């Protein structure tokens, strides 16, 4: 067996070389990007990395569910555009009272669910109420400041106990989805929404098929069918794309750019995202409780080389990415400077420091290799513990038993975690908690964003963690495909405009 392993390693290396060699050698065929008119009967095959455990969007976590179901199958009163603006969807308009305590939504007429039942104001009231009432539902607490939900004719009125600048945004997510009251479908495997696509089938371990909703209230989806293929392996996705079996590859590895673009049928599209490669530092652990040590770690890390190695994304020095309100360039809080890092470590008496980095195995080794080498350079020995995600959830997330941890936090507008001392970040600063609370109570978006900016600056100054990079949405799109979203695709993916010729 050991003999096989050695040989295996050697052969894989040779194989990788061969593979890159042959792709580079293939001369690009004349691009047929003269994409003809969209075919209304087209079936578009889209690769997704991960499959949801089940389809119950009220209970089950995971970005895959948001990607697949929100906007496409389920809708709320409001939704967000790729540019992160809030727009009316099942509401035709909404108004917010001057004191920020009353939200009035006028419900769109003539909307039906996929099973043919009409959408009523009562459905909306029930949907919001059940999320609010059931603490086990995800995002239930996002409606905490809503004190009453009532229908008034075609209007739905939300009354708040205090202003909540995050409410509209939260209603564009899971907390605001509108379901049919009294539906008896098994939500783990079926869905009944109002969106431009219906859920046609789910073959577990393989694919989900969406079909155009022919009785949709708005502009109908451009493709007759979208097949979402779950292919975790990047190599399999690449082969599938090159063999013409996939039309769009999401979550692609940007370093494989030249391979997928080699024969001219695909091009790589990079879009902004709210993915934050977060290096959490457990300030309750040993030397890490010393802010100088944390700052030294941050200053020892060369962010530019990480972004370069990943082939996409940009540097990030604070908890808020550019797409979210409250962003500011915080690179001055910990610029790359190994000499300064060594000095800080010496001051803190932390020579010969050994730390463990706990990282879920599916992130690969690129980031951890750079960290090991950067930290070694300033005298810190970094041990890398690659673990399965459930192990990470138990050790790091639940028990907070770690030194350093790396996770890609994809959620938009999730600054709240820095204001939550119980979160696994272990960051506890009452000033930040207060600023965050003020920001949510603000009635004016600009004020709210400014308060977030102040809070984020404090978090970065406290060296609460390091933000290694702000990821990009990397999608390989077939040259005959149009309308695939490019921004923040890892979180949401509106497929209504997707078309193929």
């Amino acid at each position, binding site marked *: 067996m050991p003999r096989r392993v050695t040989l295996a390693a050697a052969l894989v290396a040779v*194989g990788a070389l061969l593979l890159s060699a042959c792709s580079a050698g293939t001369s690009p065929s004349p691009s047929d990007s003269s994409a003809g008119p969209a075919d209304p009967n087209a079936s578009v095959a889209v690769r997704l990395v991960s499959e949801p455990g089940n389809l119950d969007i009220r*209970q089950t976590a995971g970005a895959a569910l948001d990607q697949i179901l929100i906007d496409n199958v389920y809708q709320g009163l409001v939704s967000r555009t790729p540019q992160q603006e809030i727009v009316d969807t099942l509401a035709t308009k909404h108004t917010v009272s001057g004191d920020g305590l009353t939200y009035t939504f006028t419900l769109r007429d003539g909307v039906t669910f996929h099973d043919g039942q009409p959408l009523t104001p009562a459905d909306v009231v029930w949907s919001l109420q059940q999320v609010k009432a059931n603490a086990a539902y995800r995002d239930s607490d996002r409606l905490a400041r809503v004190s009453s939900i009532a229908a008034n004719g075609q209007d739905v009125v939300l009354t708040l106990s205090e202003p909540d600048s995050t409410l509209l945004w939260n209603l564009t997510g899971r907390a605001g989805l509108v379901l049919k009251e009294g539906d008896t479908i*098994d939500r*783990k495997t079926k869905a009944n929404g109002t969106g431009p696509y219906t859920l046609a089938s789910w073959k577990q371990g*393989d694919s989900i098929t969406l079909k155009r909703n022919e009785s949709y209230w708005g502009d109908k989806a451009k493709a007759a069918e979208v097949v979402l293929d779950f292919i975790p392996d990047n190599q399999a996705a690449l082969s599938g794309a090159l063999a013409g*079996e996939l039309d769009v590859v999401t979550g692609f590895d940007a370093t494989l750019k030249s391979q997928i673009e080699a024969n001219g049928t695909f091009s790589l599209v990079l879009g902004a995202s709210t993915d934050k490669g977060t290096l959490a530092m457990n300030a309750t652990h040993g030397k890490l409780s010393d802010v100088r040590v944390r700052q030294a770690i941050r200053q020892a890390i060369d962010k530019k080389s990480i972004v370069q190695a990943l082939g996409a994304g940009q540097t990030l020095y604070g908890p808020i990415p550019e797409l979210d309100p409250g962003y500011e360039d915080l690179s001055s809080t910990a610029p790359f400077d190994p000499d300064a890092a060594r000095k800080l470590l010496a001051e803190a008496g932390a020579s010969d420091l050994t730390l463990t980095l706990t990282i879920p195995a599916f992130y690969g080794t690129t980031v951890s290799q750079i960290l090991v080498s950067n930290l070694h350079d300033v005298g810190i020995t970094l041990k890398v513990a690659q673990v399965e995600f459930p192990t990470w959830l138990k050790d790091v997330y639940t028990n907070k038993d770690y030194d350093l941890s790396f996770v890609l936090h994809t959620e938009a507008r999730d600054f709240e975690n820095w204001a939550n001392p119980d979160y696994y970040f272990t960051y506890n600063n009452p000033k930040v908690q207060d600023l965050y609370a003020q920001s949510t109570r603000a009635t004016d978006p600009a004020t709210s964003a400014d308060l977030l900016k102040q809070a984020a600056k404090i978090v970065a100054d406290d060296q609460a963690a390091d933000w290694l990079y702000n990821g990009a949405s990397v999608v390989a799109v077939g040259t005959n495909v149009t309308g695939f979203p490019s921004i923040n695709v890892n979180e949401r993916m509106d497929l209504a405009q997707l078309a193929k010729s």
Partner: protein
Amino acid sequence: MIRYALTRLALLVLGLFVASALIFLTLRILPGDVAQLIAGLNATPEQVEAIREHLGLSDPLPVQYAAWISGVLHGDLGTSLLTGSSVAGELAQKAQVTIPLGLMAMTVAILVALPFGVISAMRRGHADGTALSIGAQTVAAVPVVWAGMMLVVVFAVWLGWLPAQGFPRGGWTDPGAAVRALLLPAVTIGVVEGAMLMRFVRSATLQATGQDFVRTAAAKGLTRTQALLRHGLPTVGLSIITVLGLQVAGIIVGAVVIEQLFSLPGIGRMLVADVGNRDLPKVQGELLVLTGFVLVVGFVVDLVHRVIDPRQREAE
């Protein structure tokens, strides 16, 4: 013979029981649980606890084991914690990919191993025999993943003859498409397993050549090759049955890797996903069925061997 079969059967049942306990206990060593995974990041400990309670994960281990085994004895392999679907149903679904894949891989392995094994034995000492032998050593050492990648590059990406990944959505409603989807993965496993099997065929053939009855047959005027083919090969075939039985486990392991590489919705890929999701009742059911399958194959091989090989009966 009947006594032998009954003893062997009792051993099989005991083996299954021990396997069930081992499967159950070893899975409990894995850290993390499905409740945490369902709740995900940003969930409070209370939310996770509520889900855990709801799924029955807070029961003591012996209670969980007893519930599982009594279910199995009543023909119920349990249900998935995550999806609520039945384990038996999912297995039946995924077996439509994995079993044909295994059979095709086995066929390829035999087609590679038998002729080349016999030839390389008969050509021992000649350059071509040695070359074959070295070739087999090399191929047997190739990791399945690499072999698969190479085959995909050549036959799917360059030539475009066969699909690079996936299984037809309609399953076996279009048998041609289904077979095409399985061809590359089956050849991948089959060639590597076949090369290992070939080394075995070679040594079994060499051994047969030295047997008295083959030499006797040769002395009676048959050429060495004739003697070997008529009298030696049946004994080679016999020992190959045993080795093939053992290969079953190897092919299942190969399927786990290959289904991942080719994105085939089979048992191997399901198993990997379920372990990752900590859907333990489902993993338990799947592993028990797979273990049972391998044990039953071993049982059948033993019986067949006993029936067709007179020497073993005499030894009793």
